[in-house]
């Protein structure tokens, strides 16, 4: 029997910040469904003028329902191009419509979608999003195609995308449909499926747009992008702190994502003899990973170190596979894993998790059905629990927090807050900036340590949580966390989230890896650019026309 890795090993920021996309990630899960269920595809409207401004509607048709990406292309002066959430204008704006929009819907969306946060959408829409051009690649591609040439492949690989999305808002934001409105649809039950569909269709639209602009400019001389090269275009995303608190605010969901991934690893490690087909699939994905790392650039010193490690790790893994014949072992996948744990960096180990899962669709893919969460179930506090029992749960799950000295400046250096200007989560310096009195409840370790101290001050292990909370309502959120992580052992990140050396990009990387993102490129310790759907099929390739 192979055991699951322990929460103490997995739920550390350094490791979570080294996660890679797996076949359980939400993008591949979506594409597998569209393929399996034979969804169809149509471009219902293409009204983009010679100036590149206008709108288009891309629709996918499933067995029961259709979803349409409504796209607006704008003329954005360079000086207004910012991928910060504080921007107010974009190269393109989008909404995912539930069904096929009619003329009235289009009129309403035309009035609101280009305004993004300043507009309102309705419960007929599932997401709201926008994207900006990668200036250095976009113009090159348009110019090349217009002149009848293919774009430079190295430049394409170097950048990876023609447009970067910033926010993709879903789940009831800005008036959009609530998650409960769609959560019982099979295609929307999994996490972020509406958002992933949005981004996949945005990628298709952007490639069509660039070919359209080349035709306008080059006329008959213009060419389309050669299909093999076309796939090398993903869609970018730029994400900052807005996303970071998600993992702390959705502990049960986080638990379920991690449990699915860890269970998949466990199942693979327990497998017996490797078939030639599995070995080949493993080798193929290893080659792909090596190729991906070759094109994975980052200017950030932290990521550069990790990339050097990863590159060395993958080559050492390749060497091991080619020379040591690990597949001859009785439990070859476990042998490989154990070799990896002793020989690879954390970054390399987590890459190995993704590689190990790849050849085993038959025992891995069904786990994607377990990655949503009933968050209501964990909301209610068990007030009948005694303080003694609660205190033991704290020792069991939060030893790391009890050991930390939160009086020290470095352990309490930061505070999470919401900025008045953008209504977004931000990270402040507690001892340098005002605002710590308005701290968000995201200092998980410190808050549980404070809870433990007040429990100890009561000097009674028999009194109930209910009685304690009536006197100490300020601990209510921490009690909820402690009781939740008892039932869901992978719900809590076991690191100090307000420490001076905490890296928010680790939080982003973890979440984005579950989306299926690649080429993490931190631009600072708190925002990151990524690529999505690199090498993936386009709608017109995967799906029959509707």
């Amino acid at each position, binding site marked *: 029997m192979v055991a699951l890795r322990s929460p103490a090993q997995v739920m550390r920021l350094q490791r979570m910040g080294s996660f890679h996309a797996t076949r359980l990630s939400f993008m591949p899960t979506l594409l597998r469904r569209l393929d399996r269920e034979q969804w169809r595809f149509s471009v219902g409207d293409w009204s983009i003028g010679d100036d590149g401004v206008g709108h288009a509607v891309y629709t996918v048709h499933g067995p029961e329902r259709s979803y349409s990406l409504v796209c607006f292309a704008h003329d954005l002066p360079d000086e207004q191009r910012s991928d910060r959430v504080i921007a107010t204008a974009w190269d393109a704006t989008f909404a995912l419509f539930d069904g096929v929009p009619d003329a009235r819907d289009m009129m309403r969306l035309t009035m609101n979608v280009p305004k993004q946060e300043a507009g309102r959408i309705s419960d007929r829409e599932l997401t709201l999003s926008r994207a900006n051009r990668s200036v250095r690649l976009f113009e090159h591609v348009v110019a090349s195609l217009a002149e009848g040439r293919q774009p430079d492949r190295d430049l394409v690989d170097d950048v990876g995308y023609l447009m970067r999305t910033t926010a993709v808002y879903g789940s009831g*934001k800005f008036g959009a449909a609530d998650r409960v409105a769609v959560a019982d649809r099979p295609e929307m039950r999994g996490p972020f499926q509406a958002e992933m569909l949005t981004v996949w269709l945005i990628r298709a639209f952007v490639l069509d747009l660039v070919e359209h602009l080349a035709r306008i400019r080059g006329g008959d001389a213009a060419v389309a992008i050669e299909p093999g090269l076309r796939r090398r275009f993903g869609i970018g995303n730029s994400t900052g702190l807005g996303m970071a608190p998600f993992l702390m605010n959705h502990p049960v969901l986080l638990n379920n994502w991690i449990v699915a991934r860890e269970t998949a690893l466990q199942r693979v490690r327990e497998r017996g003899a490797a078939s030639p087909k599995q070995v080949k699939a493993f080798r193929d994905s290893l080659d792909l990973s090596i190729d991906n790392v070759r094109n994975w650039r980052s200017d950030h010193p932290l990521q550069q170190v990790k990339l050097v490690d990863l590159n060395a790790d993958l080559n050492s893994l390749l060497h091991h596979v080619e020379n040591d014949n690990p597949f001859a072992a009785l439990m070859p996948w476990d042998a490989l894993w154990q070799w990896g744990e002793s020989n690879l960096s954390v970054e390399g180990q987590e890459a190995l998790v993704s590689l190990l899962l790849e050849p085993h669709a038959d025992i891995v893919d069904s786990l994607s059905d377990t990655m949503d969460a009933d968050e209501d179930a964990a909301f209610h506090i068990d*007030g009948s629990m005694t303080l003694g029992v609660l205190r033991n749960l704290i020792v069991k799950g939060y030893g790391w927090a009890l050991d930390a000295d939160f009086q020290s400046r470095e352990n309490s250096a930061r505070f999470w807050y919401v900025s008045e200007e953008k209504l977004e989560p931000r990270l402040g310096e507690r001892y340098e900036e005002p605002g710590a009195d308005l701290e968000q409840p995201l200092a998980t370790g410190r808050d549980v340590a404070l809870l433990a101290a007040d429990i100890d001050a009561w000097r009674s292990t028999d009194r109930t949580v*209910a009685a304690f909370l009536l006197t100490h309502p300020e601990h209510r959120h921490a009690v909820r966390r402690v009781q939740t992580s008892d039932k869901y052992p992978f719900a809590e990140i076991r690191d100090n989230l307000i420490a001076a050396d905490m890296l928010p990009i680790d939080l982003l990387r973890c979440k984005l890896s579950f989306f299926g993102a690649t080429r993490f490129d931190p631009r600072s310790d708190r925002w990151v650019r990524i690529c999505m759907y690199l090498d993936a099929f386009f709608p017109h390739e995967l799906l029959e026309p509707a």
Partner: protein
Amino acid sequence: MTDPTIQAPAGPPPDATGDIVVSFSEVDAMVRKAARGAGYAWGMAEEAGRAARWLVAHGTEGPTLFNDLLTLVDGRTEEFTPDVSRSPWMSASGVICPVSAGAALSDRAANFAAGSTLALGETAFPVVLAPFLTWIASTRNLTIVIKAGGASAKLHAAGQSQEGLEDLARVDRGAVNLTLFAVSSGSMLEKSSRGVPVEVGRWRRLSDFAARTYVPTNEQSRRSGAGAGTSDND
């Protein structure tokens, strides 16, 4: 990509009039932040957001009612916390906050059984107790009759249709009596997830409460707080 649950919900545009249609999750997020802005602890504010969401999902006026409630308890929530050692429950101010009382009831769910009764003194907006009571009804297999200010509602387990909520929602304040019965099943609730119209002024008032939890930005924090540069021209 961003997280709708942590991001502050948007207030209405400055020039908006009439109604604004909001989603359940916007109601939850707005009331949670507004409750924190009025002085509740975060964990209690979470209960308030959850309760408001439940109320709109069951067709009652969550946002409006929470406006009035937060105005009442603003800055002195502890004076509205019930003393549960007394019978009926009573608070220092003479009026009980239904969120505090609801949480206290919910925390004591294990104590409730068929046949028991419980009395609360003067309680503001007793309908806010309903989401907490339906959870107790679910977990303890009970039906709970709540009487307040001449209105009466019969509350079943979560997911079922609740009887008399509309009448109860009309009561601004009143002493509360709870009677617990062995379960009698209600009819299944027809799930709704449509947007909820809220009068702009009221949404803006909630938004003002919520704004108290935000930290004003200066150019330095604008840059370092989000950690990004300013140009995307590459």
